[in-house]
């Protein structure tokens, strides 16, 4: 006699302002199952999760948890019913400690008073149980690494005694090494009989971790299959509704590698050192390395956010002292930052306002011609929006990213640094973005690409510079194998060794 499914949702409908986002979606998850929920952005994954989490309420349909019918109007009810959710934007308070965050809203009490000792103890047990030994319950969350914040989130979910944990893009912020840790956690959950709803764009993880896969497209259920019965290609087809030709587009014809546009010599500061880097026109150079290896740090040093204190930076041959983004832009650099919402966009402003932000901010760039080019740039990136005056906060993640890219292209930079350009973007959009990156190179831009997903670097870069602990460990040609890259990234090999 098998136990009833942890989750059995039937015929879920949801519409916002009359626009249907989900129509009659079914989702069934068994105990201890790791269930993948995939689909392009806007397919309705997040909405479905938020309905399960009690953030939104379904317009129609039934939800049963362990055989009991439920209907949530507040996240609290979902938690009490055993559904915990780890959202993409973390639900943590930087000012509070790990323990306080884990128990937020459910602090243990003794005689009416919050029992902090019990809180710390419980957290310690929880972390130990997850096999995490390097995270102190008393640590302030604001000071933790992204990975540790991720763990805190999961611990929080577990402490709610959840039978079902929904994870939205749990690895989006993690470097490959840290992903391994997450794998361990998920396995642990499986052993404990906790079911996991795993939402991700990363096919590899889905095939590594998940037992079954539910595919959504345009708010409808496409299929629900055992992972064993489907190939990655078929899955992609199911998601985007068309077969995508080879995952990474070839270098476009007519792209020729020209003069050196960006040259860093002996660059270094508090976090990085001895950086020698060279990017030529029409070239895509990939920066690979584990989280904290200094990838983003290099990007930010080059762009003057946290400038180099040692060494020189030359753009198009002449040495520049780049001590602020402003100077970087003057020098013809552009930086597509890792985090769109926090660093890339003014969310309440229109698409137009955002797209011309760089031109507005830098008088020397503002010209009729450049302003007039913006519409073409946007359409060139095939942005989907309700017109130029739509506020960007209403755009999908992919389209928001396009606005960010457009913002920089409008400035006609010579060098563009892309930091995690594809984070949280669905497969289809990713592929379009890859092609566009190729196109940029073809136009003679020097592209510096940073990605935590190794395959991206390998698939796109003409050269791969691998970092290890803030220094350049080695350089590989494009198309190198992941093993080679990891060898450098983990410090097992370095240029000093005889190759």
């Amino acid at each position, binding site marked *: 006699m098998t136990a009833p499914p942890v989750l059995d949702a039937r015929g879920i409908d949801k519409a916002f302002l009359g626009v249907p986002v989900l129509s009659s979606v079914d989702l069934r998850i068994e105990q201890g199952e790791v269930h993948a929920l995939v689909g392009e952005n806007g397919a309705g994954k997040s909405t479905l999760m938020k309905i399960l989490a009690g953030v939104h309420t379904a317009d129609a349909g039934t939800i049963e948890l362990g055989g009991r019918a439920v209907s949530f109007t507040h996240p609290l009810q979902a938690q009490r019913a055993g559904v915990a*959710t780890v959202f993409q*934007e973390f639900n943590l308070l930087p*000012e509070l400690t790990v323990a306080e965050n884990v128990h*937020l*809203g*459910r602090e243990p009490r003794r005689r009416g008073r919050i029992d902090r000792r019990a809180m710390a103890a419980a957290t310690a047990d929880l972390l130990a149980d997850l096999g995490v030994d390097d995270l102190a319950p008393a640590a302030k969350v604001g000071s933790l690494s992204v990975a540790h*914040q991720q763990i805190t989130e999961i611990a929080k979910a577990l402490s709610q005694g959840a039978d079902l944990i929904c994870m939205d893009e749990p690895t989006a912020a993690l470097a490959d090494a840290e992903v391994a840790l997450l794998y361990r956690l998920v396995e642990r959950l499986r052993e404990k009989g906790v079911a996991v709803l795993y939402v991700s764009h990363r096919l590899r993880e889905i095939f590594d971790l998940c037992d079954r896969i539910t595919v959504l497209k345009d708010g409808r259920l496409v299929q629900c299959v055992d992972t064993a019965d489907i190939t990655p290609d078929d899955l992609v087809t199911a998601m985007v509704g068309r077969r995508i030709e080879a995952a990474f587009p070839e270098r476009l014809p007519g792209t020729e590698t020209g003069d050196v546009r960006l040259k860093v010599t002996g660059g270094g500061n508090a*976090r990085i050192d001895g950086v020698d880097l060279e990017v030529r026109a029409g070239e895509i150079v990939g920066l690979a390395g584990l989280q904290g290896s200094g990838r983003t740090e290099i990007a*930010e040093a080059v762009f003057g956010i*946290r400038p180099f204190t040692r060494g020189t930076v030359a753009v198009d041959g002449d040495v520049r002292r780049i001590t602020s983004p402003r100077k970087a832009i003057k020098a013809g650099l552009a930086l597509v930052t890792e985090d769109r919402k926090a660093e890339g966009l003014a969310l309440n402003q229109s698409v137009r306002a955002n797209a011309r932000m760089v031109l507005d901010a830098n008088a020397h760039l503002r010209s009729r011609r450049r302003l007039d080019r913006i519409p073409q740039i946007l359409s060139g990136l095939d942005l989907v929006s309700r017109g130029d005056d739509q506020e960007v906060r209403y755009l999908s993640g992919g389209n928001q990213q396009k606005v960010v890219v457009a913002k920089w292209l409008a400035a006609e930079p010579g060098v563009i640094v892309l930091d995690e350009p594809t984070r949280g973007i669905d497969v289809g959009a990713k592929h379009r973005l890859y092609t566009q990156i190729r196109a940029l190179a073809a136009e003679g831009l020097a592209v510096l690409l940073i990605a935590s997903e190794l395959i991206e670097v390998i698939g796109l870069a003409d050269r791969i510079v691998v970092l290890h602990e803030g220094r350049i460990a080695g350089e590989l040609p494009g198309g190198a194998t992941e093993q080679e890259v990891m060898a450098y990234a983990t410090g097992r090999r370095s240029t000093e060794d005889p190759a």
Partner: protein
Amino acid sequence: MTAIATAWHRLTARLAALGTTALIYLALAGVLVLGGAAVAIDGADKGANLFATANLVDMLTRTSLTGFLAIGMTLVILCRSLDLSVGYTAALSSLVAATTMDGRPENIPVAIGAVLLVSGLIGAANGAIVAFLRVNPFIATLGTGLIIKGYLDTEYKGPAGDVPELFQQFGYTRIGFIPVSALVMLALAGAAVWFLRSTRTGHHMYAVGGDAEVARMSGIRTDRVLIAAHVLCAMCAGVAGLLLAARFGTGSAEAYTNLYELDAIAAVVLGGTLLLGGRGGVAGTVAGVAILAVLDTVFNVMQIDPFAKDVLRGAVIIAAVALYARRQLDRTAARPRFAAAEGKSR
């Protein structure tokens, strides 16, 4: 030149090492020392002494009123809200108290009850407007303040009611050189500290102020917390009203003309509570109140021109906040996902 620079850096480093609250008590000590010195030098001929009993009493007395208001204000500010109506609430409370007591000692308990009820209701209204109608607290409480003002102007054309001698003691008696009102204020402060640290509602105020959405997603009923904060804040204003009544011997609608609310906010921020919510506490606020009170006394003892007082007060508030503003802003700037990035931007 560089020597000074390095010295400065060493100093700032030292300060940075301190907790904000500690820093504020350091500031308070500083103000006391400087004030004491100033008074001594200024009144050398008369042998003036800031720490003479008379002056100590004066300082402590001055802390009481602002203290009550500031303690309540701390709670709402922690929730990233604001209450600009406390001055009006206090004025109304003084009238409710005085008219209810009506010179009869036996009415005192009823009067206190009535005040807490009325002020509590005002707070509930503020909270509800902010929480449910999503009106910015600045505007919401400015509005309720106006509403109360209109009521006061219409219903009370001046002082009304009569506070019995017995209750006036609350405003006038003192144990040694410590006024009863100051003791009550400190007791209330203690209670507030305990409340924020040891009760869920109190603890959740930090969460709500830190990030309302996160708090909500963690299953905290943010609306309730916010309303609770406003109710408590208004009740503190009610207590302040009781103190006014005790000191006036009657209720006074005019009390609202003194912009007590701005004093309270200034004290709270001086006390290191972040105007953006989520950080700070009542312990700091008490120090903030004390700083203002010390200044007032110093100015009085030194016979500073009333208008010069305003200038100095304004300057000191800005300077003191500037002293530790930078650190605070940086801390709260850090949001989990962006912690790394923010870390670099410093």
